[in-house]
């Protein structure tokens, strides 16, 4: 009897059930999609925020004071301590090595560049300029993994007119470099021009071919940027690096991150060490390179946390609104099925059905709708989340396996909450009023 009632209810009221089903599918889909997007958006935004550039700087422990005004370095490079280039792959070997998305070493040297000014009688002009050695997009190896790093992924806003130079210079003494846009404009240099640096007498003269003009919006606009090996050779300092800028995915600072690690209890220190704060990553870099000093770049690291927290908070609040809308959609659909069948319920009650059996009938019907609609909604929701992620971030969403039960639970709660009101109304209906047609 019970099953027949249910079967007949679905069979006779296809339109009504379809409407309720669509509402459930949509409600669950929206809830699923929003939860999936909201849990993943922190990660995605963290990657987007790397557009602000490196958030950790590494320099030699032995203090040397940079003297630089408006991008012009006033102090020659010969003095001071250096980092070792050969140690750089160790950066990927630290505990949070996989959250380091890239790093770029820098070695600036002051050179006098001889520019051939197109056959003017005075001969080549010699101008002092800073040459910055770095990695552009260098493939490195740590353990079994290859990774590509350099300014191209650490400074995504650098734009080059022309081509990026090669990191490995060919055997002959011609090396490709980038010319900063201000330097290039001042001396009328174009892509393809060459200039000479170094001392011929010492056999250390290099011909630099400008492969591109760099616009960085920073001090590099007044300099030449070339491969690290070139700067090392000019400086006569093999393996030397002045500073390394590291771009890492970090966790926004919280109360734990702001504490002084040296005063923490061992358990707390472990927790701090195993959280990817900018500070703990810097601490681990210090461990890997004991003669170096790593420090968070506060302008990037601090603000990253606050922006990330705001975006995350916003998405969660919007998700909450979506869940509410889903509950209401389901609730409205259930209410409608109830309203349309008041007479039927009245008749059932008049014939002796108890409140429980009426509720059970509705619950069973709801459950069928929930399983079918909820399942379809879940699939649709994951699909929607993928579409959103692909179109906004250009990468697929990463749905944690642990999320499935959560989403299912939430969908179930939505259905339960949405149906509760209708169920209660159904159980309480007074048959006499309904059958008389006064309701």
């Amino acid at each position, binding site marked *: 009897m019970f099953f027949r009632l249910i079967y007949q209810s679905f069979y006779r009221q296809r339109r*009504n059930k379809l*409407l309720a089903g*669509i*509402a459930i599918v*949509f409600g669950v889909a*929206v809830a699923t999609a*929003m939860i999936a*997007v909201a849990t993943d*958006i922190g990660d995605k*935004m963290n990657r*987007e*925020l790397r557009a*602000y*550039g490196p958030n950790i700087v590494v320099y030699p422990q032995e*203090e*040397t*004071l*940079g*003297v630089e*005004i*408006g991008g012009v370095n*006033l102090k020659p490079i010969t003095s001071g301590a250096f980092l070792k280039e050969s140690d750089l792959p160790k950066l990927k070997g630290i505990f949070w090595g996989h959250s380091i998305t890239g790093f770029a070493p820098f070695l600036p040297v002051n050179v006098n560049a001889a520019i051939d000014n197109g056959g003017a009688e005075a001969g080549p002009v010699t101008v002092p300029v800073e040459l910055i050695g770095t990695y552009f997009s260098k493939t490195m190896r740590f353990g079994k993994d290859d990774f590509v790093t350099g300014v191209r992924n650490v400074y995504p*806003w650098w734009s080059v007119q022309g081509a990026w130079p090669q990191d490995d210079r060919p055997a002959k003494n011609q090396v490709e470099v980038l010319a900063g846009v201000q330097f290039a404009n001042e001396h009328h240099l174009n892509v393809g021009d060459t200039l000479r640096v170094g001392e011929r007498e010492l056999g250390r003269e290099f011909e630099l071919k400008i492969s591109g003009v760099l*616009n*960085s*919006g*920073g001090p590099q606009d007044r300099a030449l940027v070339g491969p690290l090996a070139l700067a090392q050779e000019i400086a006569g300092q093999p393996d030397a690096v002045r500073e390394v800028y590291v771009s890492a995915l970090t966790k926004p600072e919280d109360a734990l991150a702001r504490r002084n690690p040296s005063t923490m209890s061992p358990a707390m220190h472990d927790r701090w060490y195993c959280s990817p704060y900018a500070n703990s990553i810097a601490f681990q870099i210090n461990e890997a390179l004991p003669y170096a000093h790593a*420090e*968070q*770049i*506060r*302008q990037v*690291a*601090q*603000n990253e946390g*606050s*922006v990330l927290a*705001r*975006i995350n*908070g*916003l*998405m969660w*609040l*919007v998700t909450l*609104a*979506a869940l*509410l*809308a*889903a509950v*209401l*959609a389901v609730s*409205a*659909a259930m*209410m*409608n099925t109830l*309203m349309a069948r008041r007479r039927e319920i009245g008749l059932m009650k008049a014939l002796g059905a108890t409140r429980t059996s009426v509720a059970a009938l509705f619950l069973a019907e709801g459950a069928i709708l929930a399983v079918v609609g909820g399942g379809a909604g879940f699939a649709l929701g994951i699909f929607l989340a993928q579409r959103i992620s692909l*179109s*906004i*971030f250009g990468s697929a969403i990463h749905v944690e396996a642990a999320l499935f039960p959560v989403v299912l639970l939430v969908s179930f709660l939505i259905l339960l909450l949405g149906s509760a009101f209708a169920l209660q109304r159904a159980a309480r209906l007074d048959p006499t009023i309904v059958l008389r047609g006064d*309701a």
Partner: protein
Amino acid sequence: MRPAKILLRLMLRSATVRRGRAVITLIAVAVAAAVTTAMLNLYVDMQAKLHHEFRSYGPNVVLTAKDGSSLPADVLARVDRELADRGTAVPVTYAAARTPQGEPVVAVGIDMERARKLNSWWSVTAWPSVPNSALIGSRAQAALSLDGQPLDLIFDGRLLHASIAGTLRTGGPEDNRVYLSQPDFSAWTRLQPSVIEIAVAGGPREIQEFIGKLAAQFPAAEVQPVRQIVEAEARVFDKTRSALLASVALIIATSFLCVLATLTSSVLDRRKDFAVMKALGATQVMASLLFAGESATLGAAGALLGYMTGIGVAALIGRINFHAGVEPRWAVFPAIFAGSVALTLVTAIVPITMLNRIQPAVILKGE
């Protein structure tokens, strides 16, 4: 009775007698309107809020005197006027000074109050509050090995003797420098500000416009955007906005569906009333008018109710997440109102026209 009066009475009775239905419809419309209002309000306001949030990244425009020229004396006042509450401008002066031992160090003259506002990420142990006290970068402090001793600096043969108020730590080039307040600095070096760092709120187009205006006002200066900040901001902002827009669209679609389901079935539910009216001689237009009038009234009331709730919800979200209220956007109201009424009208008229094809007798017989 005149038809208009009958119509009014019918509508009134329909609302009071069938209270359950009317309330459910009203709630559905109100909730949809509330959610839509809250989301649209939030969406519009969020852009300003996020831009404001991004301003904590510091200056995004830099005005520099061209080589060999200096900025006019009233430059700061003029920049402030151009900014008009949309941001902060900080005049900065650089000088390469030396310690008595001959160690070079960069000294910077800066408006401390404004710098504090602009560079919120600076970690400072104590800001200078008395004249002739300096803020020293952490690397500079270590290199000059001052243990709380006063600082001596020489520029152009003139000696500065300043106490150390606090240490500055940023992880950037600031760590190498010594910061002095603008009056102390210009009394010592006799230099006038050559750089103005500006943080201006707004999208890339607004910033470009602002740069254009400044460049026109100060032909002797270079006005440049800080590309690192401007471009990264544009990128992150666009993604956030798109994610929010997608969510808002989903939510609005859900609530729209909710209203659609409720209204359609509520009208279909009343096919008997409709049949009776027709059997008693009402024209199709008359009957449709009644149903449409009822629905539109519910829609209008729901829109009003929902709008008020929505404003509240948006303000609440703004307060929770951004610690600042969300200003109610009255401009959203006509759209919400018209949308609600139109939606209810459509969902009322369509089923009615469908019913019109059926003979009243068939409906009344209950088939």
